């Protein structure tokens, strides 16, 4: 029996990558425990079979030694990414490299690494970057809108005081003539500054693209990000997704941004406090003519002092918080003709509820 020497056996057993040895015709001669785990075959189910049983695709492959030699050369040295086929029919991304073993006729040893996890984290990373980009844009927009409002108020006061002064002077017979001119120029400059702010506001309102959206898919797409956020804060979480939900018209990425923001607020709210059973629940359901996505936590909840200003720009209870997260979220949800509300949870915690109208053609 080949590969029965204890040295070789322990080499195969210890390898983390799947190790498959082929004879010169491509038949499987050895199949390491890692290979058995990866492909889902017991060793004796594949020994003697052609290695193409481990590859997807049903196009005929040349099975002669020369084709094998050619294929091996492509995989030698650096290896490359390809797809593997499991016993149960599922296909997975893999990285494979092959070496020719000494001796004649030649034998080949293939090392195969599962890339499924890496692909997932790559996809999550891409999603995260896209969301961060959106968040930065929306945050800048919210900040500009907030600053615009805060500055427009004193400018309005200046303009109105100056205009009131001008009118009061108009009624005075021996008023110094220059003073009315000065007041009118103050008014004109305040109005000019307000116009600049108005243009700024128009400039930063975020563009939005609407498409028919399955809310549960939208949630599941950010499932990986939710999981890692929860793990990082040692909080457990559950998804309670309603079944057969109608679609909504939405900007998917914007709503994912809102959801992640609410989720992140929830997991952060626990802080270092000793809350038993720290848990966040993301729930989706139909509520009449609307769809509801709620994020519920059993943390300390929102303080009574914070409640009236919860959605205002620049108001925050977190050290280092910008106070823009909930303001941005509410702006996005309102732009979808929806509402974002806070409800205290019992006995403790907070519930943030997004309600969105169903798509017009939804049943």
């Amino acid at each position, binding site marked *: 029996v080949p590969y029965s020497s204890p040295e070789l056996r322990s080499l195969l057993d210890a390898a983390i990558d799947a190790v498959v040895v082929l004879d010169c015709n491509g038949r499987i001669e050895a199949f390491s425990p890692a290979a058995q785990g990866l492909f889902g075959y017991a060793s004796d189910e594949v020994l003697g079979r052609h290695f193409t049983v481990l590859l997807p695709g049903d196009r005929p492959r040349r099975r002669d030694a020369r084709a094998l030699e050619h294929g091996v050369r492509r995989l030698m040295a650096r290896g490359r990414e390809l797809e593997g086929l499991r016993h149960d029919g599922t296909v997975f991304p893999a990285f494979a490299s092959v070496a020719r073993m000494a001796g004649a006729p030649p034998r080949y040893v293939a090392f195969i690494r599962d890339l499924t996890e890496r692909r997932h984290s790559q996809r999550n990373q891409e999603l995260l970057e896209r969301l961060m980009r959106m968040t930065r844009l929306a945050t800048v927009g919210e900040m500009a*809108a907030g600053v*615009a*409002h805060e500055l*427009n*108020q*004193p*400018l*309005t*006061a*200046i*303009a*109105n*005081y100056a*205009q*009131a002064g*001008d*009118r*009061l002077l108009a009624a005075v017979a021996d008023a110094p003539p220059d003073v009315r001119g000065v007041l009118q120029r103050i*008014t004109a400059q*305040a*109005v000019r500054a*307000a116009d600049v*702010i*108005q243009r700024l*506001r*128009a400039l930063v309102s975020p563009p939005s693209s609407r498409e028919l959206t399955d809310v549960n898919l939208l949630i599941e797409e950010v499932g990986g990000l939710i999981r890692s956020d929860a793990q990082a804060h040692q909080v457990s979480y559950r998804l309670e997704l309603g079944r057969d939900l109608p679609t909504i018209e939405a900007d998917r990425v914007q709503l994912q941004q809102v959801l992640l923001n609410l989720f992140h607020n929830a997991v952060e709210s626990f802080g270092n406090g000793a809350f038993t059973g720290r848990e966040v629940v993301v729930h989706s359901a139909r509520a009449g003519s609307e769809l509801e996505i709620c994020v519920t936590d059993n943390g300390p909840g929102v303080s009574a002092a914070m409640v*009236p200003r919860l959605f205002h720009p620049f108001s925050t209870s977190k050290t280092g918080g910008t106070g823009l997260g909930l303001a941005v979220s509410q702006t996005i949800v309102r732009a979808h003709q929806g509402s974002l509300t806070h409800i205290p949870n019992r006995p403790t915690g907070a519930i943030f509820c997004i309600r969105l109208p169903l798509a017009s053609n939804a049943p």
Partner: protein
Amino acid sequence: VRPVPHILLVEDDPAVSDATRMLLMAGGCRVSTAAGAHEAERIAAAGGIDAVVTDYLLEGDCSGVQMVDRLRHRCGALKAIMITGDPSAAARELRRDQHTRLLSKPVRAEEFLSVLRELLDD
């Protein structure tokens, strides 16, 4: 002789409220001020208000439009001027009606007072 109109000014920013009050008084109006919807409802309930001038965005979850709707529900027909820093957003919510006008912030005194006169004379 035209009677002095009594204006209810609803504005939560103290400086804007004070400056607008002075502008209205310089324009020949009597002015009562309220900082929010509740205070406004209390004053309007006492009667004698000819028109309400309100910021479109009020503190809390009540917009100027909602507050005016409530005032009209309680006190009958009431003329109103909404003043907003973001006219495009406000215009979407504002239903067309002959007793309401929308002006952008800051207002031009001439325009403000003439719109108010027209509304009152209507």
